[in-house]
């Protein structure tokens, strides 16, 4: 918004003569429209990718009929959901029933305000950005409980209760990990956190304090996965146990809103994780940061977030769902002790002058680790092609 305000001020004659509240309101409205478009259209893309990834991972081809390669399938689905009738169950609290999906979507969308897409490309550069993200993402929990309660349905209520238990549990390790980053940077602003990772891939927080921060990243990502109710932590909507969990009774556009919130939240968790650990809008190489005068910051952030979203989908089609007790076990007995240890250890390391910005050997790990990961992915790809060819040969024989 800062950027937009400057742009309008310079290029639009008479903008500075407007009354003060309009000078704030107009850029805010433009930002809002941009973000809401991005957020509303994003899920259409994510759902398409999800169905395709699901298909490919199960040796199928996924949607194919509507549009080229089935690209318009989710558009058709979204349109269908919009025109469907919203059914209110008997005995439902109608006002809460309608309010719940709105609150869930609100919680997901509000987090977008502080995510920095560039040095100045942030809607509101709050100095308590991290805190804001944590606070606002809990709003959707209220929405989930409201949905479960207002539906007047036992499965919905089960789902809501489970989601409350789950999100409360997983918020704690996630916030602990946030705390380590905040201690290293010394600021709660997301943009400050990104600025502290300037200078290429080896400066990213993922590769600082070598054995410690990768563990922190894993914990944060796991907790984030749980917070957006994704497999293997999807017990609030466990479709094989509770019909569809908290959104059992929802139909039509309200159901679409829950869907939209889920996929938006996936993107937000991924974006926050990439801001905290993967250098936000910094390119892996400083040379890739911009092409001529055009900065690629937003592109890099979105790419990183999408990569993490893909990992979420990958996990979804890999892992089975946890039981409720296993879920609590993971949160309280595994993630939380490690996270608390990390807070203490990294806090100590930050206090000590020689390791203020990481271990001395950190610079030797960034590129090799990234290389190993890419090598493994490539190797598995080749192995898959070979395996496939062998299978076809055996089938033909």
């Amino acid at each position, binding site marked *: 918004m800062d950027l937009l305000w400057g742009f309008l001020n310079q290029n639009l004659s008479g903008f500075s003569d407007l009354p003060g509240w309009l000078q704030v309101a107009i850029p805010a409205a433009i930002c809002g429209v941009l973000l809401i478009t991005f957020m509303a259209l994003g899920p259409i893309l994510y759902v398409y990718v999800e169905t395709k990834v699901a298909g490919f991972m199960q040796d*199928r081809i996924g949607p194919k009929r509507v549009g080229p390669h089935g690209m318009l399938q989710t558009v058709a689905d979204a349109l269908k959901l919009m025109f469907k009738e919203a059914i209110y169950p008997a005995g439902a609290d109608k006002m809460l029933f309608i309010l719940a999906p709105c609150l869930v979507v609100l919680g997901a969308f509000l987090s977008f305000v502080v995510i920095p897409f560039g040095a100045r490309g942030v809607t509101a550069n709050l100095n308590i950005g991290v805190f804001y993200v944590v606070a606002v993402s809990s709003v959707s929990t209220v929405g989930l409980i409201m949905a479960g309660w207002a539906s007047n349905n036992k499965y919905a209520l089960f789902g809501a209760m489970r989601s409350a238990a789950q999100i409360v549990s997983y918020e704690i390790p996630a916030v602990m990990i946030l705390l380590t980053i905040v201690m290293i940077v010394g600021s709660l602003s997301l943009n400050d956190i990104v600025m502290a990772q300037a200078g290429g891939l080896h400066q990213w927080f993922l590769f600082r304090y070598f054995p410690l921060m990768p563990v922190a990243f*894993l914990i944060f990502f796991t907790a984030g996965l749980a917070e957006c109710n994704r497999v293997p932590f999807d017990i609030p909507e466990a479709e094989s146990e509770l019909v569809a969990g908290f959104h059992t009774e929802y139909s039509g556009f309200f159901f679409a809103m829950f869907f939209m919130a889920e996929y938006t939240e996936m993107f937000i968790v991924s974006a926050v994780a990439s801001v905290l650990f993967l250098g936000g809008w910094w390119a892996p190489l400083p040379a890739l940061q911009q092409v001529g005068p055009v900065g690629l910051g937003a592109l890099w952030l979105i790419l990183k977030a999408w990569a993490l979203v893909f990992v979420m989908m990958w*996990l979804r*089609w*890999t892992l089975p769902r946890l039981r409720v007790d296993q879920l609590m076990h993971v949160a309280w007995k595994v993630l939380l002790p490690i996270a608390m240890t990390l807070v203490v250890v990294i806090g100590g390391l930050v206090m000590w002058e020689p390791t203020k910005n990481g271990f001395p050997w950190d610079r030797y790990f960034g590129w090799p680790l990234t290389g190993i990961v890419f090598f493994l992915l490539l190797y598995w*790809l080749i192995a898959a092609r070979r395996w*496939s060819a062998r299978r076809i040969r055996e089938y033909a024989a």
Partner: protein
Amino acid sequence: MKQWLSDLWYGFYTVLVGMKITWRHLFVDKVTLHYPEEKWTLPPKSRMRLFMKYEDCIGCGQCARACPVDCIYIKTEKRPPTSPAIWAADGTPIKLDTHVFDIDMSLCCYCNLCTYPCPTNCIYMTPEYEFAATDLTSHLYHFAKPNAKFLTVNPKPPAPKPAVAAGAPGAPAPAAKPGVPIAPGAPTPVAPSPGTTPKEAPPVPGDAANPAPIIATGTPPKAGGDTAGGGDSAPPAAVDPEPSKA
């Protein structure tokens, strides 16, 4: 503590193993068949829609008796001795005029049991499987053709008689039968009347147990030409009550 750590490592490691497998499957050739465009060629013995070659049917009704769901409806009538002799493709003489040969594929359970007893192999299952219909009655296939062209010469003439007697090992089984053909075909000339069920040589044994498939119709067959079937095949509605009774 040691257990905790090893559990932790085991959990992490198994997740990686699973992710490796799914990543590999991302790039494996897909097995999906785009059905309406691509079709799987079925194996030659697949059991799909039934087919009956009317010209080869001798009207013995063994298929109808073998059918566990009674979905084959046959109405036959003894062929008058005045009409020309006809043969199935394997040399079996056809001594019954089959007026109705209907198969209700909506009842069929695709067990293939009807094809085994058929003495002339005229009923068999085809690999044809795309016969979905919006109307259930369109699954009732009428195979009796009023203008069917039957063989009027024996395709496998009987072995020369004077050499050996009937039970000789040299004489092939199908060829032995046509030795008895037309003349004794109607030893007891019973006038076809609505109430009577004339018992014919092949279908006799099961008749008492399951009389449904084979009954005589009141319409006298047309004697002229080489068309064997009666001109009017009874509508399916007339056949339907029979399986419900059985």
